[in-house]
């Protein structure tokens, strides 16, 4: 790593933020360095959007510090190095895609060429269309173009692919990877764990306004012991958690996911207790299993933050 890479792009230090009666952030620490892609994961209300709002200067911390390129996130110079894609920002209905992207390019001192921003966001052929006439997915792509327009050193992507079709999603991933490759840091929040796994080299799981896990996707997954068994069963959650070696039970629709330290031991008991078991698969725990498990464990024990690696 080059010496400059030790200077954090974005920094939250012991941040406390109250929103109404609830404590949205409770001593949160987060450091993002150049070229890093950090995925911020956690259940709804964990403090993801508050963290994003603090780093983009829309909120000020009640306690602790927020820095963007070593400055107040509201400083014009710091904002000039950041590109942001908000979750539900609007577009002016009567301006064309080209005019809107051109307008945002103008805010930055060394912007990307217009055609490049249009191409990276997959908007070729839509330049002359008015923003009001675009589909939801197309509007998201315009938002992405606006985020890229200034050739940022820090890209904030808040649920970037919501409403996008598969092609658009892959296109965005490719463009984000290229940004990371040229040294841009990325903060990603997403509900799609596959997206976090595809892009992020670091996963930060937060809950109740604190970091409960922080590490590479592999480290996060390894925190969950072993193997995931997925199946349909008529056993109750209580019965399932009583099975040998089971460390976690979660349900998704009709299917159950059992986390276990020994698949053979658990399977023998499961099959003996319920002969109707169906749709059975056994696989290494996914990132989603790991995050779910970490959040559950955090809620149950509400232990102080545990750090990986």
């Amino acid at each position, binding site marked *: 790593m080059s010496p400059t890479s030790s200077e954090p792009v974005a920094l939250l230090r012991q941040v406390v933020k109250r929103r109404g009666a609830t404590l949205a952030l409770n001593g949160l620490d987060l450091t993002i360095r150049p070229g890093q892609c950090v995925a911020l994961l956690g259940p709804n209300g964990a403090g993801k959007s508050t963290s994003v709002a603090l780093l*983009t200067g*829309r909120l000020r911390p009640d306690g602790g510090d927020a820095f963007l390129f070593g400055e107040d996130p509201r400083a014009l110079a710091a904002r*000039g190095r*950041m590109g*942001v894609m908000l979750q539900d920002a609007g577009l002016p209905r*009567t*301006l064309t895609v080209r005019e809107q992207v051109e*307008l945002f390019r103008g805010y*930055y001192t060394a912007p990307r060429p217009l055609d490049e921003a249009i191409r990276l966001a997959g908007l070729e052929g839509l330049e002359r269309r008015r923003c009001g006439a675009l589909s939801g997915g197309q509007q998201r792509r315009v938002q992405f173009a606006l985020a890229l327009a*200034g050739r940022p050193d820090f890209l904030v992507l808040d649920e970037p692919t919501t409403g996008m079709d598969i092609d658009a999603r892959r296109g965005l991933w490719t463009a984000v990877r290229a940004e990371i490759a040229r040294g841009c840091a990325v903060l990603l929040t997403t509900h799609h764990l596959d997206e976090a796994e595809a892009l992020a080299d670091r996963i930060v799981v937060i809950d109740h306004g604190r970091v409960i896990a922080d590490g590479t996707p592999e480290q996060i997954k390894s925190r969950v012991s072993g193997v995931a068994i997925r199946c349909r069963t008529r056993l109750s959650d209580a019965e399932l958690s009583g099975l040998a070696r089971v460390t976690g039970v979660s349900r998704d629709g009709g299917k159950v996911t059992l986390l276990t330290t020994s698949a053979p031991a658990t399977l023998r008991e499961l099959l003996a207790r319920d002969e109707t078991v169906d749709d059975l698969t056994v696989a290494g725990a996914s990132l989603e299993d790991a995050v779910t498990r970490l959040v559950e464990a955090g809620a149950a024990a509400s232990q102080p933050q545990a750090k990986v690696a």
Partner: protein
Amino acid sequence: MHTLSVYVREMRAQILATWRTPQFLIPSVALPLLFYGVMGLGLSKGREEVAHFMLANYVIFAAIAPAMFGFGAAVAAEREARLIELKQIAPLPAGGYLAGRLAAALALIAVAVALLGALAWFGGVRMDGWRWAATLGLGLAATFPFAMIGLNIGLRMGSQGATALANLVFLAFSLFGGLWIPLSAMPAWFGKIAEYTPSYHLGQLSQMLSGVQPMADVQRHVSILLAMTLAALVGALIAWRRRAA
């Protein structure tokens, strides 16, 4: 240099966006023309002094709606559509967005006022060149107090509430300011309320500038207008900061 170009681009974009909203553009320009055509020219039937007097009032009237709706209530709508948030994050200087919107309102009002002037001229109104410039110029300058009052509404209320309240204030300013019907034709208590509206003071100044009323009390009218504009500006700044906090 960069900052200047950002302001210019923002203004251009806002003017373009306004221009492409005919459902707002046409009433803003057509309403004062229509009212003046009927009440100022039609009813005066060749009595040019009436047409002259009414022109002074209608240049102020022409500024109210675009300033309050185009500037004020539109901010509420854009805030609700979350258009402003991204601009507050992007490296656009804080005043850039508002300057852009103000430029769009000014451009629209300039068109409305210029057309009113042309209509009056064809209707037989004649005055010195400087009086033309001063009267129409005051109509344009009237944008500022109304825009600042509208901005307070736009920043403090939701889009629907802002439109409703802006409508109410627009009607009150026009009526109590004596812009539609001269205050002399109204009961005395109208005049008392009029003192509290910027439209009344602007109307008085406009009549003086266009020469239908002798110059009097200019300093009082101007200072009241400045105080109102300044108070509205401070109120808007507080609301803007609270939104940003």
